[in-house]
């Protein structure tokens, strides 16, 4: 420990004596760490902002939709989730959660005069507005009465209105054409924005019953469930599965013919994506650190040759091989660590500074502690790995030859 401390002291004095060269030597490490921190801070910022969007969505939300799996079809089982299934699910989760079903309507573009839009049209129950936390900017939502009366009314998103060149505040009361029918716009949704680059405002909602009658066959629905207590999500999930398996006559160890998706799963997916991104950039950075490490090794080898006489003097004064080895090894590590710290500072500055300049990037850069620890750990590792060869060279010098070295 004593020698480590002394070596650190002597390393700093060596670095101070050659400031410019030390900075140039650790430039590879500085750039490597800087780019890691900058990139990680941006990815983590993105992750945090996506997660916060999902939080509005709810970690207590469960989505149930038909399975696209061929395996289930091969059993000859019904793959659709029907309105009956939905009602069975409602019964099963009563008291623990609220739910709504929606059905997609396939068809033409929505037309208004010369303009048209390819917005997705969905049939919804009034509960959808509550469960998905949708706000109405103008007019009203579709209500239960619209459904029972089969009223051809529509609530629209603002991107759809843009396509149709209708001002949001003038939309209510206008008629648009869809699949040969005329729909009255009764409400306009608040803007939501894009999630994963998908425009959430390019939508139109019609009453569920109106949408259902568009389809010749029994429509397949997607069920949205809002669990009252987040802790109850697993329980509610099991109740839903049980109900649906019963409805579909699935027994024993046969697989589900439907899929469920929870907020936790969504978060897990985001984590997977950001994890992959981080790993890919981590790989790139590992290569740059490798290059930086080779730079350090080169300069340290030169430095050992240059300081041959000094090493000889220290040996004459009684330094052992281990002490010389430690001194040069620690010098390499300190060089790398200093580079790492400079890299972290620069990288943080770049990450925080560049985030507002990226178009469409609404997140704030976030620098996680683990990234700093990782950068420092990596720098130390590089110092040890690439410092060992020059240090061994220094330690093995013969004192007589070293003293004679000019």
């Amino acid at each position, binding site marked *: 420990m004593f020698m480590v401390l002394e070596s650190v002291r002597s390393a700093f004095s060596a670095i101070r004596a050659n400031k410019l060269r030390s900075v140039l030597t650790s430039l590879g490490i500085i750039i490597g760490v800087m780019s890691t921190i900058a990139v990680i801070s941006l990815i983590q910022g993105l992750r945090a902002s996506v997660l916060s969007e999902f939080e509005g969505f709810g970690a207590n939300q469960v989505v149930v939709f038909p399975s696209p799996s061929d395996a289930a079809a091969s059993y000859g089982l019904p793959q659709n989730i029907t309105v009956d299934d939905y009602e069975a699910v409602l019964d099963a989760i009563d008291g623990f959660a609220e739910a709504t079903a929606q059905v997609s309507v396939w068809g033409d573009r929505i037309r208004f005069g010369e303009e048209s839009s390819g917005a997705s049209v969905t049939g919804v129950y009034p509960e959808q507005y509550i469960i998905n936390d949708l706000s109405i900017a103008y007019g009203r939502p579709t209500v239960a009465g619209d459904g029972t009366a089969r009223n051809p009314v529509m609530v629209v998103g603002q991107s759809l209105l843009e396509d149709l060149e209708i001002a949001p505040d003038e939309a209510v009361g206008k008629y648009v054409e869809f699949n040969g029918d005329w729909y009255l716009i009764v409400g306009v949704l608040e803007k939501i924005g894009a999630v994963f680059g998908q425009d959430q405002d390019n939508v139109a909602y019609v009453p569920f019953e109106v949408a259902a009658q568009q389809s010749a066959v029994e429509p397949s629905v997607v069920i949205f469930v809002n669990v009252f207590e987040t802790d109850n999500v697993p329980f509610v999930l099991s109740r839903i599965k049980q109900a649906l398996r019963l409805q579909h006559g699935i027994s024993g160890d046969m697989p589900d013919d439907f899929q469920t998706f929870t907020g936790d799963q969504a978060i897990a997916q985001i984590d997977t994506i950001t994890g992959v991104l981080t790993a890919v950039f981590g790989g790139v950075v590992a290569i740059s650190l490798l290059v930086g490490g080779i730079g350090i090794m080169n300069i340290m080898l030169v430095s050992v040759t240059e300081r041959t006489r000094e090493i*000889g003097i220290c040996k004459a004064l009684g330094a052992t091989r281990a002490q010389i080895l430690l001194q040069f090894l620690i010098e390499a590590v300190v060089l790398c660590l200093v580079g790492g710290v400079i890299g972290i500072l620069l990288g943080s500055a770049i990450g925080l500074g560049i985030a507002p300049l990226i178009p469409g990037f609404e997140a704030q850069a976030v620098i996680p502690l683990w990234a700093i620890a990782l950068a420092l750990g990596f720098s130390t590792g590089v110092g040890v790995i690439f410092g060992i060869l020059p240090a061994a060279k220094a330690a093995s010098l013969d004192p007589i030859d070293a003293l004679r070295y000019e």
Partner: protein
Amino acid sequence: MPVSNVIELRGIGKDYAMGGEVFSALKSIDLDIGQNEFVAIIGSSGSGKSTLMNIIGCLDRPTRGDYTLAGDDVAKLSANQQAGIRNRQIGFIFQSFNLLPRISALHNVMQPLIYQKVGLSKRKKMAKEMLEKVGLGDKLGNQPNAMSGGQRQRVAVARALVTQPSLLLADEPTGNLDSKTTEEIMQLFEQLHASGQTIVIVTHEPDIAARCQRQITLKDGAVVSDSKYGGAI
């Protein structure tokens, strides 16, 4: 009167292999140097005096023979053990001073104490006292390149003495100095001798050798004359 020997060399020889042929730099040296002796080892280049100095200084190992330094058998030590002996028993003084260039006089003198694991404050105190003793109490913070040759050699002497070695081993200590500073350094050696220090100076300058108490002359790897035994052997 019984004088305990600091150095006892018995049949010391050093061979070098030179392209298949064996060249004996030292043939068979027997030599005793006692406590508080002030000895000059003289010889022209090629006489083997550098080889002998390296062996005495534990920088090199003899091919054959026994070497006892301050009671320790040091002829067959490992490199690490030799380093320990150099650190504790020997104070080196070189012709070209061999100070560490990037650090102050004080830190140069502190350096050998690091290898003895002496704590920082104690190290500073010991080094400061030693520099004051050689008359450089006002130059503690100076770097070697800001000092004259004589001052640098004084720093080197302070560095050599700070570990209180059994033996002060000087290799042409005045070789790079003018006559005035040579005189100063020689006076310093004489003072050290008077205070009880054992000193061995390796030199080819007769003037320097003449100021020592005892002169040993080497030629072709053998001792040809020792003033202690009345001259030629």
